[in-house]
């Protein structure tokens, strides 16, 4: 499972800095595809839910719906400090906080903006987590709580 981690990249309330870094990681300089990472835009195809930017009232149900449409095993990676806990915008009236306010997060990759090296590091760790989750799924572990 860790050899083929397909990613769904969603931008919550980001300034787009982290998004650009995520896209940069797919370019030839950093080349995420050599690890088998594919940026599919489809939750039904994805294993890793990569979220940048904070959660606000409008995108909270969206994030929940996308998460629910992903098949198990799945891993959530919060990329950038805004996704981890709200970042610079934590005190804003519309920001609810980081991604863990709506769905369970497995990996936090802080940074503002996150460096491609950190993103790659985070995705590699997420892939390992995928393997573990798959083992647990096979062993019939109870379903995790739905976010």
């Amino acid at each position, binding site marked *: 499972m860790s050899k083929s981690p397909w990613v769904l990249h969603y931008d919550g309330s980001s300034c787009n800095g982290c998004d650009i870094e995520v896209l940069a990681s797919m370019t030839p300089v950093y*080349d995420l595809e050599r690890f088998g990472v594919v940026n599919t*835009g489809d939750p039904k195809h994805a294993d890793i839910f990569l979220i940048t930017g904070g959660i606000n009232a409008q995108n909270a149900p969206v994030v929940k719906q996308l998460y629910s449409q992903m098949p198990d095993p799945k891993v959530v990676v919060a990329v950038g400090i805004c996704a981890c806990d709200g970042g610079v915008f934590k005190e804003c009236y519309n920001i609810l906080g980081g991604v863990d306010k709506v769905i369970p997060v497995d990996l936090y990759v802080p940074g503002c903006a996150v460096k491609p090296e950190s993103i790659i590091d985070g995705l590699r760790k997420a892939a390992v987590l995928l393997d573990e989750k798959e083992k647990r799924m096979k062993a019939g572990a109870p379903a995790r709580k739905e976010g």
Partner: protein
Amino acid sequence: MVWQTVLRILLFLICAPFAGGLLDGLDRKASARMQGRQGPPVLQPFYDVWKLFHKQTIVVNRLQDFLVGGYFAFSVFTGCLFFAGGDLLLSFFALTLAEVFLFMAACSANSPYSSMGAQRELIQIMSYEPMLLLAAIGLYMVSGSFFVDDMVGRGASAIALLPGVFFGVVFVFVIKFRKSPFDISSSHHAHQEMVKGLTTELSGSELGLVELAGWYEDVLLLGFLALFVLNRGVWSIPAAVLTCLACYFLIVLVDNVFPRVRWDKMLGWAWAVTLIFGGANVLILALVR
């Protein structure tokens, strides 16, 4: 000889997924190198499909399983029929049936991306079907039979008499292999226009089946290209393999160079190439022979 046919079918059934997956891996590696990056390992497609079969099954409705199963079953069936030396036209018709099943699976999902992908898929099929039928007719005119066995048993390679048809086939194969500039209904990985088009609502083992069926189909398509080169002589075999690989590489190159076009351009160009290259070739053959 029945056991020979059975052996060929078994060989196809077992080897084609591996060959198809390898081709897919080579495609991704070559594309990556063309783009100046390292690219995934050549065995990556196998990891992908293995992963897909180990995911939870998520469906949008209860009809999908049957329809995707139909697509897979008939894709494999077509390949078996072709490699057993059967009737080429019937193989095409069976392949069309398989594609209609996939189309129905996409439509049944009642999702905007899926449906748009499905409509575009129909336009794609409409674009390449005339050329493939003409190609089968051209091969029939040259070899006197629609059976694949007879076509490869000729003294000379068919491509000598069918250069226009061969060119037309390679042209529409860009559509069949879902490559730019004609990948309007469901594109490979990083190239999306409508999420994943046809396969948007498929996941897990269903998606894995679609991938596998695609590999069987890829091997079938390359086998069809080989029909133009194979003849009774033993040297035609490496020549055919080289031709297939060269054409495949050419298609990958075209994929990396050209951007996607609109559906009407695709339809227009495909039909124009069919008429001009395929039609003229068949006309000349009909007049001369």
